[in-house]
Structure formats: structure tokens, C-alpha cells
């Protein structure tokens, strides 16, 4: 069970043409390691789809035509800090990996974040959520690409706490770094809007039965029950909240982090009406739909998640920066180049990477459709509002990132 499952070891794109300036890569090849959840709770919105997206970015970048050799490999970090650290060290030291992308849970992302810094490599986080990656833990070797706990809290928290029946909150929180960060960031938004946090309960991760915690939330009489957890914990909690008549009883559920695969797993009948924040949705525009059309057949009919899109976007920008720089040897230099160049790709459009390592783009507030509004499987979201890039992420001076002067 242990060790590196080199789940996908290839996609070596050999140099075909020889026009243009040849970049000088450390060992003649840019090696991209997709470190992700291949088998656990989060594998459906990361996993093999992330490896596929990284390869797609390499293909769309036209590495072969530019005479650059790029290799994409993947491994399962099993959402454990020790396993992800071992693989990251092995990749950086032995396998000559230049950049690690994805990283699904907060604990694995924080662990690899510090290894990347120690080894002066590049770490591009798409899967993990904690806003500490661009706050107290920010690093000159990392960029946090898709979303973070602050942006989720800001999107969903603001939308609910601004309304008259969203003033009092109770949190059901996963008892580890990610849950704590999400709860902290959302509490701040609620209080800023004049709301009150009536209480919280921290459940072991992963949990199965949430009825006891939901009952405590029900007894608190809070108007909103904030679910500061993810994946199976969130779907189980939502399923059981429906069973215990929480929403019929007048309380609202706020699923602070939820992915399209979770909605698929819940079914629209249970999930309808949920409001939440995401960075990307496959059916939002023609570009996204075109990507999904290529993605789904290669991934058992599943539609891409915002994490998949983030892996694509981050790998593409990385390749652009490395080519512009002409070298992939110095991780910190590559990252500064990535921060210097504006980002642009077909999935996220134009954007920038801030000094603290935060990638900036619009975020969206979505609502889950009613069963009768949906045209079929995967037609799940309707856009409630767009949160402009300038407001979507934590102001740089509030994060406490030591890199920001």
C-alpha cells in the first residue's frame, strides 16, 4: 500500500522541431510531478483528472513544437503529510522533478510547501484550501492557484451574512488545519457583517455519522449552519441534515467548500438550493465547455472540477515562465518570473499572481439547480453572482505574508 504509485508515468514529448531558441533546462527535460489524491476521499475532483490536465497543458503549450522536452508523472499522496513529504523528497532529490502541482489536502500542501522552499523548487497548489499558504506560511517557491479558505468564506459568508436571516451561525468543523482555517476565515466574515457565531463543534476527520453534531447545531437555533469540512464529510452531513429536517426547520446550510463531484454524489434532490463559492465551472462559457468535452471522455465521463482547471492553468503558466526565463533550475527565480508575467489561458482568462503567491481571478457564487431545472447529469449549477477578482481574495496586506514588504 505504501510508497509511490507511479500511476501515470509517461507523456514524454520528444522534441520534434528545432526552430526557436532552445531553452537550457537543468537536465534537458522539464519534469512535472502531479502529487495528488489518487485513491481517497478527494480522488474524483483531483487524481487522474489532474494528471490528464497537466498533460493537456503541456500539449496546448506546444512544448514539442518549441523543442522543449516535458515529462509528466503522477503519484498518490494519500492525503497524509508523511507520505507526501517522502514522495516530494524522492522526486526532488532522486527523480529530478522540477515542479510539484496539485496537492489536495491542507496538511500535504503545507508539508510540500516547506520542502519546495528548502530545495528551491517550484510548488503550485491547486487542490488544497488553507489561506495560510499565502499568509503566515507563504514561500518564494509556491503559488496558490485556484481558491482558498478566505475566498470561500468571503464569497459564501458575505452572500449569506448580508441577508437578515443569515446573522447567527453555528459551525460543524473538520478537526484539522483545513477545517480550522475555514472556520476562522468564515467567522471573521460573519462578524464583519454584524453577525454572530453562536457555537461550533469539531468532528473527527473523516467522519461518518454527523447526526449528533447536527443535533447540536439544531439546538443552537442558529440561522445558518456552516459546514467547514470537505468531500465525504460534507456530503454525509448534507444528506443527514436533510434526514433530520434541518432545512425544513428553517435553518440554512452553508457548505463552505463543495465540489461538482460532491453534488453529483448527493444527487440534485438532496443538494438543490445549496449556495457556495467556486472558482470555475465547466458549463460557464464556451471555452470551459470545450475543455470539458475533451476531459470527460478521457476520465470516465466525469466533468472537470475547478481543481482540474487549476492544474491546467498553473502548468501552462509555469511552462511560459520557464521558456521566458530560459531555465528551470532556480525555483525561486521561476516563481518570480511567474509573478512578473500576467497569466492568460482559456480556462481562467486573464489574471495575475501576487507577491504573496496568490493567483488572482474572479470567483463565482453558485446555487445548485432544482431537479426540474437540470437537463441531465452534471448540469448542476446556476450562477448567482460573480465576485470580481479585486474583491475575491484576501487583501495582500492582511495576510501577514513575510514576503510582502
Amino acid at each position: 500500500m505504501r510508497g509511490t504509485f507511479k500511476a501515470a508515468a509517461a507523456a514524454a514529448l520528444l522534441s520534434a522541431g528545432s526552430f526557436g531558441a532552445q531553452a537550457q533546462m537543468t537536465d534537458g527535460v522539464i519534469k512535472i510531478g502531479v502529487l495528488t489524491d489518487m485513491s481517497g476521499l478527494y480522488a474524483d475532483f483531483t487524481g487522474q483528472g489532474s494528471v490528464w490536465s497537466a498533460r493537456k497543458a503541456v500539449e496546448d503549450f506546444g512544448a514539442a513544437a518549441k523543442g522543449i522536452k516535458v515529462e509528466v508523472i503522477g503519484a498518490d499522496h494519500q492525503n497524509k503529510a508523511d507520505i507526501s513529504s517522502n514522495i516530494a523528497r524522492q522526486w526532488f532529490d532522486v527523480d529530478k522533478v522540477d515542479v510539484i502541482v496539485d496537492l489536495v489536502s491542507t496538511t500535504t500542501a503545507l508539508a510540500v510547501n516547506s520542502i519546495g522552499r528548502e530545495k528551491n523548487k517550484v510548488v503550485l497548489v491547486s487542490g488544497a484550501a488553507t489561506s495560510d499558504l499565502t499568509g503566515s506560511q507563504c514561500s518564494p517557491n509556491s503559488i496558490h492557484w485556484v481558491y482558498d479558505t478566505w475566498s470561500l468564506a468571503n464569497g459564501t459568508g458575505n452572500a449569506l451574512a448580508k441577508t437578515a436571516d443569515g446573522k447567527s451561525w453555528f459551525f460543524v468543523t473538520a478537526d484539522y488545519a483545513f477545517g480550522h482555517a475555514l472556520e476562522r476565515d468564515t467567522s471573521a466574515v460573519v462578524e464583519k457583517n454584524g453577525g454572530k457565531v453562536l457555537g461550533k463543534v469539531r468532528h473527527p476527520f473523516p467522519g461518518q455519522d454527523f447526526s449528533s453534531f447536527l443535533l447540536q447545531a439544531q439546538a443552537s437555533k442558529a440561522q445558518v449552519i456552516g459546514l467547514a469540512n470537505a468531500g465525504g464529510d460534507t456530503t454525509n452531513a448534507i444528506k443527514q441534515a436533510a434526514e433530520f429536517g434541518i432545512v425544513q426547520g428553517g435553518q440554512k446550510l452553508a457548505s463552505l467548500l463543495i465540489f461538482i463531484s460532491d453534488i453529483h454524489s448527493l444527487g440534485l434532490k438532496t443538494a438543490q438550493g445549496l449556495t457556495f463559492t467556486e472558482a470555475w465551472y465547466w458549463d460557464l462559457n464556451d471555452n470551459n465547455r470545450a475543455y470539458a468535452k475533451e476531459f470527460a471522455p478521457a476520465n470516465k465521463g466525469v466533468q472537470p472540477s475547478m481543481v482540474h482547471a487549476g492544474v491546467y492553468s498553473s502548468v501552462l503558466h509555469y511552462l511560459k515562465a520557464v521558456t521566458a526565463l530560459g531555465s528551470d533550475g532556480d525555483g525561486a527565480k521561476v516563481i518570480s518570473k511567474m509573478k512578473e508575467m500576467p497569466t492568460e489561458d482559456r480556462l481562467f482568462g486573464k489574471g495575475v499572481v501576487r507577491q504573496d503567491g496568490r493567483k488572482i481571478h474572479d470567483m463565482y457564487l453558485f446555487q445548485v439547480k432544482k431537479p426540474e431545472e437540470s437537463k441531465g447529469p452534471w448540469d448542476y449549477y446556476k450562477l448567482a453572482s460573480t465576485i470580481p477578482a479585486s474583491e475575491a481574495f484576501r487583501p495582500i496586506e492582511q495576510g501577514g505574508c513575510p514576503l510582502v514588504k
Partner: protein
Amino acid sequence: MFELLGVPPQALFGQLLLGLINGAFYALLSLGLAVIFGMLNVINFTHGAQYMMGAFAAWMLLQYAGLPFWVALVVAPLIIGLTGIIVERLLLSRLYHLDHLYGLLLTFGLALIFEGLFRKQFGSSGLPYQNPLPGGVNLGFMFLPWYRGFIVMFSLVVCLGTWFLIERTKLGAYLRAATENPQLVQAFGINVPRMITLTYGFGVALAGLAGVLAAPIYSVTPVMGANLIIVVFAVVVIGGMGSILGSIVTGFGLGIVEGFTKVFYPEASNTVIFIIMAIVLMIRPAGLFGTQR
């Protein structure tokens, strides 16, 4: 009104009831394990995977055959029991003459294979399954969904029925005799190997049944059993390996203990059962209801 450590009594009643409901699952699963261990001397590590397969069987019956929950409640355990019989005939029966450890390794390996296959086919996020008994009743201190009430009653009936079957009927007497002295029982003209096969099938069917019961309230995912089975093993150890009554009583009892922990110190609710297990093992190594073999 009196309060206990800052928690109003209504909340405690609610948690007591929820604990009983979770205990019902522990009891059903540990009962299957106890039956198998008691008769076969095999520690069935595939139990969690078989529970998961029960839930998936219910989903598949609904999805592909349009069969509702109530039909699945009967059919799915039969299917899972049958797969158990195949596993016993093909693999497990070849290991009886070896050390227990081999059976444990085989069943553990099978669990990983089954979970891997389901994950490959259905992904890891899980599948939707609608509640067959929506709604509930307000008891004053809590809202009790009809379905949860049904789980407690139903599993109590199944547990007591199993206990009665094994401890109070002639068939049960044969089974217990065959465990003590298989040669002698065989000499009386009873087909002991077939009885053992059916016992394993029955234990596995109990796991499948618990899985069907879980489908409407928990996410149907390939890892749903892996999360639960460790706790269930602790329940079996506390109750005493192989003790039928012990597994039922400790199953419900520990569900309640866990429920209370979720109120007073929720962070520890995953560990409390293991703390109890450690204490019980120190004081009574054979478990609360077990006898030294």
C-alpha cells in the same frame, strides 16, 4: 431544570437515542464478525468491504433493476451472502488447517481488492441513495427521523433473532457442537463443511444487510466500510471474541458511549472506543462477555 456539565437533559436524551442508532450498526456488524469467528475461528477482515458491497448492491438493484429499498433489504444481503459463500468455498476453506494469521491476511487482502475494484468503477465521492422513509416525529427533545427509528427496531429484531437461532435452536446446537468437536459431529452424519460454509455466508449477509441499512443515510462510497470496520473490531474485542450476546450488548452500549462523547468532547469521539478497549483488555483480556479459549 437540572443540567449535567452544562448540557441540558433534552440534548442528552437526543444523544442517547442517536447513540443507540449508531450502536445498531455496530451491533449488526460485530454480530456478523462474532458469528464467523465463533464458528470458523476466522477473523474476517473483509467484513467492512462486504458491508460496503451491501450498500452498493442496494444502489445497483435500484439503478439497474428499479427495485426499491424494501426489496433490496431482502435481496442484497442474499447476493452478498452468496459472494461470501463463493469466497469461503474457493479460498477460505483451504486455510482452515493453517494458523489464524493466514485467514486474516487473506480476508484483509480481499478487502483491499474489493474496495479497489469498486473505486475504479464508481469513483470515490459516492453515489446518491434516497431515503425510503422521509419525515419523522418530533419527540419534544429531538426530531427522530422515521428511518432512524426503523433502523434501531429492525436491527434489534435481527440481532435477537440471530442470538436465538444460535443459542436456542437445534440448528444452533449443531453449529456450536461442530465448533467444539467437528469430527464427532460429522460422525453423527451432519455435513460439517457445508454448515461452516453457510455460517460464513450468513455472517457476510449480516454485513451486507447493515450496508443496505446504511445506504440511505451515509454516502455510498467504496471506503465506507474501511472507516467503520476498525471501530467494529474494537467492539468485538471489548465484547469478547466470538460471543454473540457480547457483541450485541457492547455494540449498542458503545454506540451510546460514543454518542455522549460527541456532546462533551467531540474531538475524542473517534478514540473513546479504543480507550475503552485498552482498559477492558487490561482488566479482562477475554473481553466483557468472552471466555478464555
